[in-house]
């Protein structure tokens, strides 16, 4: 369960609510389980991840996001469940009364480490700070598979003015597909194509986004955990070496376009807007915006 954030906005108070995940706790029974020797009570329907959060145990996740249906494909959140032949994914496995779980056993650490090594040896993780932090935590060594290990390296796809798709950084977490589909936008411009090591995110027949069903909401960018999907300005600034988050300001405000009232975070560097995002726990947007909110801000820095 996500904690209630109370970050006040410097401009306009932004309505905040917990991210929508587990409805109506009161109506549900509480179940008791044991995690790392500690007992914890959580509502029926909660996941193991919810329970670990309640205990303050930090569980790594890559393909999980509060606003999306868990796909449990990255397997970095696996935990040891007594009585289970294999490890189980914390993000999607629902708790059952009496479960006994270990989140930091030798087995868990090995699988998490190897999964991170598999990812980092096949994908460019240079713009995935979270994943790199996990690698440090689990002492993962991407180079152990040798210099000739197969990768998904490929040229970035730059086919429109708004964003860049660099699939050499894609860990295939399915988040963008979910955000483009029923979990947010219902546009279905992209899907998972191919199979095995060469499975990848694609439009039909790899057509450019400009010919596809894409509506440029950028919600895929909002959920991408590795920077494979990126606004073009950020991409170009990074290429030029001028992108510097430490020098950026973040201003929370409300989108000026229509009456929906989407909360937006305006990222600016050197007095210039470089990116617009939306807080995932915003009660209106849940992190989602439309093309106008995410990309239609040029007029704001038009000083004429």
């Amino acid at each position, binding site marked *: 369960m996500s904690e209630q954030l109370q970050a006040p906005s410097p401009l306009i108070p932004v309505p905040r609510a917990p991210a929508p995940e587990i409805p109506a706790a009161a109506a549900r029974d509480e179940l008791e389980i044991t995690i790392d020797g500690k007992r914890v009570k959580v509502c029926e329907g909660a996941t193991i991840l919810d329970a670990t959060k309640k205990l303050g145990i930090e569980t790594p996740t890559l393909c999980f996001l509060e606003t999306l249906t868990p796909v449990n494909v990255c397997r970095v959140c696996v935990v040891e469940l007594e009585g289970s032949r294999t490890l189980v994914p914390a993000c999607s496995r629902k708790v059952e009364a009496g479960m006994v779980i270990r989140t930091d056993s030798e087995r868990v650490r090995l699988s998490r480490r190897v999964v991170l090594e598999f990812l980092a040896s096949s994908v460019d993780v240079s713009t995935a700070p979270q994943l790199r932090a996990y690698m440090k935590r689990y002492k993962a060594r991407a180079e152990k598979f040798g210099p000739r290990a197969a990768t998904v390296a490929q040229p970035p796809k730059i086919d429109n003015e708004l964003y860049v798709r660099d699939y050499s950084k894609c860990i295939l977490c399915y988040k963008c597909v979910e955000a483009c589909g029923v979990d947010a936008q219902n546009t279905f*411009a992209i899907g998972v194509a191919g199979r*095995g090591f060469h499975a990848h995110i694609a439009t039909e027949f790899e057509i450019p986004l400009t010919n596809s069903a894409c509506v440029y909401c950028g919600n895929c960018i909002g959920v991408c955990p590795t920077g494979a999907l990126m606004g073009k300005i950020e991409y170009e600034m990074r290429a030029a070496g001028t992108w510097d988050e430490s020098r950026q300001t973040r201003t929370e405000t409300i989108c000026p376009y229509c009456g929906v009232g989407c909360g937006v975070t305006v990222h600016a560097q050197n007095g210039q807007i470089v990116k617009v995002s939306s807080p995932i726990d915003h009660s209106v947007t849940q992190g989602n915006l439309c093309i106008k909110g995410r990309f239609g801000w040029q007029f704001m820095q038009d000083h004429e």
Partner: protein
Amino acid sequence: MDLHLTEDKASPEEEAAVDAALEKLASSPGEATPLGATDGHARSNGLPARSKRHLLLPVLQAIQERLGWISPGALNYASLQLGVPPAEAHGVASFYELFSLTPRPPVVAHVCDDIACMTRGAGALCGDLERKLGPAGSPCVDGKALWQRSSCLGLCERAPAALITAAGETPRERIVAPAKADSISSVVAEAALGRLTAEIDRLDSKVSVPQAGQSQLRLLGRLGQADPASVDDYRRLGGYEALKKALDFGAERVIREVIDSKLLGRGGAAFPAGKKWQAVHAQRNLHRPHYVICNADESEPGTFKDRILMEGDPFAILEGMTIAAFAVGATKGYIYIRGEYPFAARQLEKAIHAARAQSFLGSSILGRGFSFDIAIRRGAGAYICGEETALFNSIEGYRGEPRNKPPFPTQSGLFHEPSVVNNVETLVNVLEIILNGGAAYSRIGTANSSGYRLFCLSGHVVRPGVYEVPFGPTIRDVIEVAGGVGGTGRLQAVLLGGAAGSFVSPKELDTPLTFEGTRAIGATLGSGVVLLFDDSVDLKQILLRIAAFFRSETCGQCVPCRVGTMRQEEALHRLAQRKPLGSNEQESALLKEMAQAMRDASICGLGQTASGAILSAMDRWSLFS
């Protein structure tokens, strides 16, 4: 939802293929009409109201079989007809090996180079073909054909094998086995001229079922003794007696008999069949549809028993399914059969028609008020679709990616409804249980492995084929039944259970081929594969082929399996080329570590077993020192 389509238009021929397929599906009484519930997963994108998605696979198949590839225009047309976003339809089409999304000659020779065929000269055969037809994958015969290497085609008793498919208005298939370069290229040439006849590759039970005609056979008893297309023949040999008895028993008693029989699933996972039935039966008052699915996606290298049952005794499978449906309260069933088995699929299709005509399927079967019908779904080249939840997704028109369990199929299976999935051989065993009683059945075999079992003997064995035994005989006994070790006559290794199984050494031949016997030596029965390798075989090459198999068959959904199968193959190549990273010991430690992560953290059985056979061989022999 408005579909956004590109400007590519389908040709009249492509439209005709889609229209004809949809018409055929609409008129098939076996097709289910799902309620459209989804689990909200990315793979289930789309409005629940979109109820035609489960027709996507057969529609794509129709395009492929008519044109030889799936063009952007054809995909657009199919998407429009079914209300499926084209990006998703493309994702599905690109998942299957037998579909091509780039122009391809209409005639394709799929030449098996998998482990069973390797022992029978597949390597030399591919070399001959290269000289005769050019390199694999490039057009030959005036651009009208090509040949390509294939994973196991399930024709191991007649290895080396090839399957030739010819797209066109009347698509044709032909099996060439045992194959020579000459015989393949002459069929390819004939097909390129459009001269392949509709001739069916008839099962030659003398070749494939060496025991055929023996009186003790319970599962293979009718093989070679009856016309597989004739209900009357089937009934003459005792067919449909079990169904009548089951209808008299009532559902509860049928389930009790199956539980009492201690029948364990024959597909590989060995789950108690009766428990599955009971779990679905228990939900009969929920007013939700229940489904019975026959898993005929037999793709484990070295396995061909189900194909032989389907080709030689198709009514037995329909009867078993009907009994299962009666027991669990299902009115619809699917047979999911691998795409590489066109003849078995046709045999089953004929049998379904014949059974319907005589009231053994359809509404009020035998006038007893119980209704049940069956549809056939053909796969399109994906080993993973034999995993039961991947199979559901495949039938539903999604990518054949396994779902996380729980929920288990008995709670949330096909179309997210309670479902029973049974393997072909399992269903045929059910007839025996109903006819003679579960208790009697449970006394056959050993304490923990009851009943009869089919074994697929191939490789260096004197008489390859499918063999039936009551559980109990050892590996040595079963090899003796099949005439002993072939090839050089000096046995090097036996692979039990296929690529997902494990190797055993000649020292372990006295192990009983039972669930508990194989478990005791850290092996598995799996799907009943007993594949022999004589001392002329380079086991390293066999391991490399197994690693390549898993690398090409992993669906790619979860990280440990998607990347692990690739890294495993890379490590084996380094070892085989004597260029290890560090030392051989370091490489084998790396392989073991990867194997543990794949076993522990993969979503499904594919990743969990992808290292088993390789490590079992490395444990038994020092192959890379």
